[in-house]
């Protein structure tokens, strides 16, 4: 199989909190995979480990066959909050990863500007983040993530902070963007519809200590849209995912 990223038997405990229990998952090239799990089960912790900013107690992160456990800077990482720098305009914010790599301003701008149209940010290059709506800020954060590393992107609830309506527009928009770019994406969400709309595969995690409870393959035909919600295949899949999510372990 053409797997670009693999997490092998990841375990992690905080002082008195056993968070991740033996998580193994993989992401194939150009695949969109979602991780669904109850709140506080350790999804963000798993992402910090994959991004290399936290160390697992056990297990390894393998990217393109090489060990990347605890090594930051290989994959790009987007947080639920946009985390844009309030003191920089959108263009500079988006270019930040390039600046950090030592690319000069002119070159960085030239590299980022062609993507502004696709990310719906054209004409807002010189605005400060505080002047943009939540949806636009989130798109800017996504473009910044994209500028850092295009082959593997980790998105941690990128639309979690948006209102329902904006979130839906953003999901549709992201789906269209995914048609244009060649990235492999790992997404965290609470939203089953979001997961089924965007993904090729879905992992469902259990309560803490989190284990992978089940893996679903989403074979709905693309392009997907609002009308996909009505397909019997979709309804059936959503029901089994929901059942799997809410099925609590017996000791609780």
């Amino acid at each position, binding site marked *: 199989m053409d797997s670009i990223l693999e997490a092998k038997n990841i375990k992690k405990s905080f002082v008195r909190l056993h968070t991740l229990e033996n998580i193994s998952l993989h992401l194939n090239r150009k695949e969109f995979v979602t991780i669904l799990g109850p709140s506080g089960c350790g999804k963000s912790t798993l992402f910090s480990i994959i991004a290399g900013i936290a160390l697992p107690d056990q297990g390894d992160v393998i990217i393109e066959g090489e060990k990347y456990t605890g090594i930051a800077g290989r994959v790009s990482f987007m947080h639920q909050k946009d985390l844009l720098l309030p003191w920089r305009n959108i263009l500079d914010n988006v270019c*930040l990863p390039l600046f950090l790599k030592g690319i000069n301003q002119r070159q960085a701008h030239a590299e980022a500007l062609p993507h502004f149209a696709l990310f719906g940010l054209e004409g807002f290059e010189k605005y400060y983040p505080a002047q943009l709506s939540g949806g636009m800020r989130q798109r800017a954060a996504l473009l910044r993530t994209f500028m850092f590393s295009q082959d593997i992107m980790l998105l941690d609830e990128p639309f979690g902070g948006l209102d329902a309506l904006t979130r839906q527009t953003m999901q549709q928009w992201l789906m269209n963007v995914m048609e244009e770019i060649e990235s492999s994406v790992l997404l965290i969400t609470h939203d089953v519809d979001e997961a089924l709309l965007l993904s090729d595969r879905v992992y469902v995690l259990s309560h803490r200590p989190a284990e992978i409870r089940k893996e679903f393959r989403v074979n709905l035909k693309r392009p997907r849209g609002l009308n996909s919600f009505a397909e019997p295949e979709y309804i059936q899949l959503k029901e089994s995912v929901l059942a799997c999510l809410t099925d609590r372990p017996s000791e609780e």
Partner: protein
Amino acid sequence: MKKWRNTVDHLMSAGVGVLFLFLWEMTGRLQILPAYLLPPPSRILLAMVRNADLLWQHARITLLQAVVGFAIAMLLGCLLALWLDYSPLARKTLYPYLITSQTVPIIVLAPLFAMWFGFGILPKVLIVVLVCFFPITISLMEGLATVDKELMDLMHAMDASTWQKYRWVKLPAAMPSLFSGLKISGTYSIMGAVIGEWIGGRMGLGVYMLRVRQSFATDQVFAVITVIVILSILVLKIIQLAEEKAMPWQQHDQSQEEPVDQQK
């Protein structure tokens, strides 16, 4: 609409000031209080105009001492704050001393400095440095320490070096806090120089103030006080101006409406 409200507010506060000056003037005119205790504003103004040359000569020295002391305090304070932020070990060992040092009232050190360094500019500058140093250090330290943890995690995920973390995130994030410290220190700087001059010297507003007090020229004492207040306000305004220049993004926070999302 908002602008109009602002103008009204300004007029109101200016009106209160004018009323206050008017009542003050009346206490003198109606001889409620004798002029040798509380001269009316008109007399103070007259004293200022008459002694303008002399006041300016003394004010120059005070201003020089305050500015030099403030600049040194800013440099030292920022360097110390950066070091304490960067090195947890330095912070743990030095921070308690930094705090305790503030329990020593600087004013009691002034006579000592006069003994050690004479009556020139140096002891005054030293007092200004000591007075200004602490607020700058503490405010920058606080600003650097309260940076969003998730933002720092993101910088880590993007493999930023220590210098890059400071340059792109920590320093700009600490600016508002630093400037509030600078403003406090700025107003202290003139006061510090004047206190230093009280201990002894040949020039400066503090020296001049003692001199006119000895000749019971109350209106001139008030004239000096007025100049000191004006200088303090001036220093504060300059720092505020620098603040606006240094943080252009702050102006956009409230003044502009959110643009409508393109895709809606």
